């Protein structure tokens, strides 16, 4: 053993607890400081990114919309909130003249691999589901991913019947996915052949969402339609 480093030849005394704790303390403080710094700096950027992503999805399912307002559905009531609230949010789109053009609603369901999340367009006056944007999906490429691209499947949604029943307790008809080629009623969805599980998931999530949310929306429709005219803080102008 060469006498290269003299200091390390002697067995060093066991460092006192104070030295151990203070080292850990200093490192912890340093790391905490760094994290807080970067967190505070990036928080607004991340919030903006998320807002832009949501906005993109909303304007995709509500093409006539020029701006939107966010509403929270909680315990059967609808209240206007801002973008950052947590909970079951729906988005109401309005055109240039502040006329209500439709709603964008979230839906999610277990697909083939993992949960599939969609944002779909809903016209409460006609009871139609008019299309959707896939927010999150890890389905099999070329099979489950066809729900984004397959023209025949998307044609199901020019107006998928999701009308609310008279008592406003649910939908008149249960939305469900049927075998490819056997769609007969406007509330049925023709599955993609070769991708039944993902297609079924889409059917199930629309039914679940419709049964739960559309009646509440019906009950509060005038509130949503006139919200823009009341000129309460809005956002998302496409200027």
């Amino acid at each position, binding site marked *: 053993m060469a006498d290269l480093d003299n200091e390390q030849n002697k067995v060093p005394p066991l460092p006192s607890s104070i*030295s*151990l704790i203070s080292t850990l303390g200093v490192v912890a403080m340093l790391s905490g400081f760094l994290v807080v710094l970067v967190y505070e700096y990036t928080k607004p950027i991340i919030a903006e990114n998320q807002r832009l*992503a949501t906005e993109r999805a909303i304007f995709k399912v509500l093409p006539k919309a020029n701006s939107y307002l966010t509403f929270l559905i909680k315990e059967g009531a609808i209240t206007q909130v801002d973008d950052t609230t947590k909970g079951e949010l729906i988005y109401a789109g309005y055109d240039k003249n502040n006329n209500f053009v439709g709603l964008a609603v979230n839906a999610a369901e277990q697909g083939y691999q993992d949960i599939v999340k969609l944002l779909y367009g809903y016209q409460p006056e006609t009871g139609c589901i008019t299309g959707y944007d896939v927010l999150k999906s890890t389905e099999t*490429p070329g099979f489950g991913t066809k729900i984004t691209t397959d023209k025949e499947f998307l044609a199901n949604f020019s107006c998928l019947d999701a009308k609310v029943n008279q008592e406003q307790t649910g939908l008149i008809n249960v939305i469900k996915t049927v075998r490819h080629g056997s769609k007969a009623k406007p509330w049925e969805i023709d599955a993609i052949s070769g991708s039944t599980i993902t297609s079924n998931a889409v059917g199930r999530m629309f039914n679940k969402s419709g049964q739960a949310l559309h009646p509440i929306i019906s009950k509060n429709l005038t509130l949503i339609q006139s919200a823009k005219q009341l000129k309460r803080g809005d956002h998302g102008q496409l200027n």
Partner: protein
Amino acid sequence: MANSTKKEAPLTLDIFTAGIWKENPVFVMMLGLCPVLAVTNSVENSLAMGLASIFVLVCSNALVSALRNFIPKQVRITTYIIIIATFVTLVDYIIQAISLDLYNKLGAFIQLIVVNCLILGRAEAFASKNSFTKSVISALGMGLGFTLALVMLGGVRELLGAGQLLGYQIFSLNFEPWVVMILPPGGFIVLGSWLLLINYFEQRKTGQLITQDSASHCTVSQPRS
């Protein structure tokens, strides 16, 4: 190279190049496999993960090396882990700020960089004993080797599984993609194939196989035991 006495490694180009091929973290040392297989389903994801890992590797090893004379031996592992976790948290927020889309594709695997044995192992074996510059250079080499391995995997998987590279269509549209390559089994099979190929060439060249021992590198020995 670092030898068993307490002599510091001489500053040669070897420190940098070793990490790229001879001691490649993925193919030779089999470290950090979790992200390797999970995010290599496309070249873009592989590059992003590689860059994130380089960032954490270089920064944490640099800090560990800078503080190496101040950290008592007893708490060194805990300290290293805190430092690594800090930089991983940083890179997590930075990626979210740069591109939410990319962040969603990489998912939880960015945060799993913190348990990548490569980083902790490097800090323990090299950065704690060598100067700042050497540690940074070594970390860069290792990081580049890691990224290279990721891209090699990602390239094959994306090409065969989607006919594309970086989103550009390489194979003609008539090519029926081998979707399994993008799915989990494909990851295992492609990595296995690369390992077989590398072993084959190495055997022809030197008559020996590159040693691959993963478990020993990942052992985080508790200071007291």
